[in-house]
């Protein structure tokens, strides 16, 4: 009987600890612990790494090294690989669509340039214009600012987009619609703009 009581007390204590522990852990989940800047930096790290891997291990390997397929802006018509910039943009479009349903995970990102092949990718807002200029002139540095668009306040981070492979520079230089034809490997060709809403 005594043993049973002890067991019951033990189980009860463990249960209480478990419940309290879970409650603490759950409250930790929702406790604001990172800044918009940290979140933007983390997002950019993922985006940039994925993009580098796609460029290197898929596009460059199959197009330049193994020469089995080409990459094309009109990949459907040309039965070709999607360009790295398009891969990036398609991802951003899917994110925007999926994030629409998630109130607290709402952010957008895009790839822009002061020398865009597609004019729609030219900077539009003042922050985008200043940011792209800043990252082009200050290699290795990012640009951060807040801006109000359509009545909503946003944190905006701008990160340099650099020609990591010779093919990045050569494709851009040779494109029919490019406004700049003298990019070299290592040059800043544009920037990734990440925008996070800052509440109402």
């Amino acid at each position, binding site marked *: 009987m005594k043993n049973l009581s002890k067991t019951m007390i033990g189980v009860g204590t463990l249960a209480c600890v478990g419940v309290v522990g879970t409650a603490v852990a759950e409250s930790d989940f929702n406790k604001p612990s990172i800044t918009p800047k940290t979140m933007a930096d983390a997002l950019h790290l993922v985006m940039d790494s994925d993009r580098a891997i796609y460029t290197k291990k898929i596009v460059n390997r199959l197009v330049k090294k193994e020469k089995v397929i080409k990459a094309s*802006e009109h990949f459907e*018509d040309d039965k070709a690989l999607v360009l790295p910039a398009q891969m990036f943009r398609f991802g951003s*479009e899917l994110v925007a669509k999926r994030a629409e349903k998630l109130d607290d995970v709402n952010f*957008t990102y895009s790839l822009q340039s002061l020398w865009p092949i597609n004019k729609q990718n030219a900077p539009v807002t003042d922050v985008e214009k200043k940011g792209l200029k800043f990252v082009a002139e200050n290699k290795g540095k990012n640009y951060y600012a807040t801006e109000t668009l*359509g009545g909503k306040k946003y944190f905006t981070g701008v990160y340099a987009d650099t020609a990591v492979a010779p093919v990045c520079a050569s494709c851009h*230089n040779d494109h*029919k*619609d490019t406004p700049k034809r003298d990019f070299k490997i290592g040059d800043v060709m544009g920037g990734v703009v990440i*925008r996070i*809403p800052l509440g109402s």
Partner: protein
Amino acid sequence: MAKASKKNRYALVGAWVLFSIGLIAWLSYSMFNSEDKTVFLPGPLTSGHHQIGVACVACHTDGMASDEDIQKACVDCHGEDRKKPFDSHPINKFKDPRNADKLKNIDATRCVTCHTEHQPDMTGENGLTQPGDFCIHCHEDIGEDRPSHKEMEFNTCSSSGCHNFHNNRSLYTDFLVKHLDEPKILPKRILPKREYASLLDEVVEYPRQQYPIKQLSKQDIDAPKQNTFSQEIHDDWLQTAHARSGVNCTACHQQVLSDAKVAEWTDKPKQDVCTQCHSNEVKRFKKGKHGMRLVVDLPPMKPIDAQLPMKEKTAHDELTCISCHGAHRFDVQEAAVTACLDCHDDKHSLAYKGSPHSDLWNKELMGEAPADSGVSCSSCHMPRINFDVSEWTSRILVDHNQSATLSPNEKMIRPACIHCHGLEFTLDSLADTKLIEENFKGEPSIHVQSMDLAREDLKRAEKEREVEK
């Protein structure tokens, strides 16, 4: 005298009260009990929606529809075509906060901004209810990016062969450049081949357990013995792809229900049975003007409901799968021309016989020309396209949405015209309304500038490359 006047007044008031009660009763009946609610239409509908005018709920849901509900109704029917690559201005593009300023001028996230219904006086081509120069809101500085466009008026952006707001897939510069200097008629003129029969193994919905894929003969017929059929029905069926693929009588006349039980035999199966194996074709059929009424649970379309001229003898025939394919024979050649001309009575349709396209079709039927070199009505209006039947697979199917290649007609270029014709000739022909009326008998009398501009643009780029070198 005063009494008489008072009596008259009472009579008038009484009549007014009775009239009002009658009016309220009639309107209430129309609102809540009648299928036909056209009395509430604030104005005629566009040609795209006029067939479903009695089904207000198709767009207005419960009658108290919010803007979001209306938008959802648009997307529910048109959403698939409003995605990339079929739409160069998808809604998602405008939801990006960086475009917030542009939305102040024109809210491109809502379909009704440009396609307001019930406004015939302000509705232009393709159901557009914005002024023709609406592109200026976002492309005001186009002359700087494209000097060739500097002198052009903004109300010419969507002229035939220039730009389409939504489906621009046959008109963007690189596509034009790719097809520069092509002959009017290409040396190799073959339409895509059907491939359903060769892909049956991949068709998930195919009822292969009940009907294994094999050639059936007369001895295999599984219709109940008490049913008697004409020799003609037997012979018709034996000639079809159905008999060649193991699709026996009961597959259509005695459906397998969801609980694996077999339904009662029915002499006249409904359209649902076709969906068992041809769900994609039926789905596309319901997207077009032929089948759209079925989506909102209205009886099938009849030619008399159409706005185009139709033949009187078939005016009251209902439009379902068998209207064009015929039961048992399912003759796709008949469905491709004869079935169309049984109903359509407009100048373009009437001019088909005697057109160069028709000559090619007849030659193919007579075995004087290779398979798939003939041009039927459906070669252009229901072309064989590489269609995504799921997120992961696609196959060549006949697009039964015959509205998909029209409004504007440049949507026909990729799935139909360029299999046989050079792009320049195609653009000129599609811009020539008289030539279209004559079913392309003759040469285009109009020249579209697009290819010339693309040629100039290519030369400009080549020059720039030279300078850089």
